[in-house]
């Protein structure tokens, strides 16, 4: 299992029956492949649809039906479409139960940075700032480090996406929960030791006596 699948599988364990879920572009999108058995969730794409699966059958793509990353999707029976103002009324208004987002950094206070590397790359925030401000729960799904540099840092060096603390951070090494006291290690990936995690983390971690292995579902 590669790092991305580990992350996506672990995040999928946070899905609850009946939830409206928004998956960010990139890694978070993979979560849709691992919805646990017996659970039914609705996925929203913020460009204007609830109820899709991706990709459409070969040759069946419709140019007017894409996800927020521009990829073709299929609509499920019971899908609903709407404009951007309504889509973000759903997001800002707390109707999205769970948003899963990528991040460039998360700091000890649980804030994430995800939309700009000043002077280098300025993709823009897209819908991420609204999702962090409005979703009931926000999970950051990201690789633990990038090019050897830790992405979990004591204080953000990049501009934050929101003042709000995210609910959970899931990486290929660990599950970490931001708390009032700082970042608390909750789970280890299979075969990963606490010292492995500490070695790749740039922020102080609250380490429990026993950090269990993360559940990754079954096939």
């Amino acid at each position, binding site marked *: 299992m590669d790092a991305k699948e580990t992350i996506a599988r672990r995040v999928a364990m946070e899905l609850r029956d009946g939830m409206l879920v928004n998956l960010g572009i990139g890694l978070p999108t993979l979560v849709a492949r691992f919805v646990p058995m017996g659970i039914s969730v609705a996925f929203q794409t913020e460009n204007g649809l609830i109820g899709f699966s991706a990709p459409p059958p070969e040759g069946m793509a419709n140019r007017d039906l894409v996800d927020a990353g521009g990829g073709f999707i299929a609509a499920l029976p019971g899908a*609903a479409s709407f404009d951007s103002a309504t889509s973000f009324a*759903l997001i800002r208004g707390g109707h999205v139960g769970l948003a899963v987002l990528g991040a460039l950094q998360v700091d000890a206070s649980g804030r994430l940075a995800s939309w700009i590397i000043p002077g280098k790359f300025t993709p823009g925030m897209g819908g991420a700032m609204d999702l962090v401000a409005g979703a009931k729960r926000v999970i950051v799904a990201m690789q633990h480090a990038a090019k050897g540099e830790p992405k979990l840092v004591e204080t953000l060096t990049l501009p934050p996406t929101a003042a709000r603390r995210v609910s959970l951070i899931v990486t290929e090494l660990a599950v970490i929960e931001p708390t009032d006291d700082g970042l608390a290690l909750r789970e280890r990936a299979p075969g990963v030791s606490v010292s492995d995690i500490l070695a790749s983390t740039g922020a102080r971690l609250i380490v429990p006596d026993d950090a269990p292995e993360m559940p990754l579902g079954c096939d």
Partner: protein
Amino acid sequence: MRKAAITAEAAAALVVDGARVMIGGFLGVGSPDRLIDALISRGARGLTIIGNDTAYPTVGVGRLIEAGCVARVEASHIGTNPTTQRLMSDGAIEVELIPQGTLAERIRAGGAGLGGVLTPTGVGTMVAQGKQVIEIDGATFLLEKPMRADFALLRAHEADYCGNLTYRLTAANFNPVMALAADCVIAEPDEIVPAGVIPPDAVRTPGVLVTHLVGRAR
């Protein structure tokens, strides 16, 4: 994401006495009549009703007023219902009058996570009393607070098994915004159809907003 249909009686039992209840409709058109029947049958008391108007004594929200279910009304117009007028004069119910567009927008703001509505409507009138006035680029606006409720009782035309709703002609009115702004949203459709029968572009209220669907009467 299928929903099970419940009866109007089961829905009315959820709406506890004293609750804040948004009810769709405009002079009774687009109001959930079976839910209103059921609230009257169970003898609901002390409700705060949020809606455009109180219709007529024998129609829509007016029937709840007539049956003594209502302690307070937040509406834009009560002129068509002499009972509301009389009970207000007698002090038996409280009435807060809100301009119709402000009411719609306050409910939308409550459902859309906005901190309030900045509207020119009501500036320089009794409606402005006690409200913050904000000057923006030389124009004056009232800051009107978002509105939410414990329950929204909606009338829809069609619903599908996922709770997606359509409305018909002038029966939509306040129903779509109310679907955003209550903790528990109960929709009474004229018809229920399988998932996939309502095309995605025809849906006006996505099913994820609907807590309960009222099924057909047996």
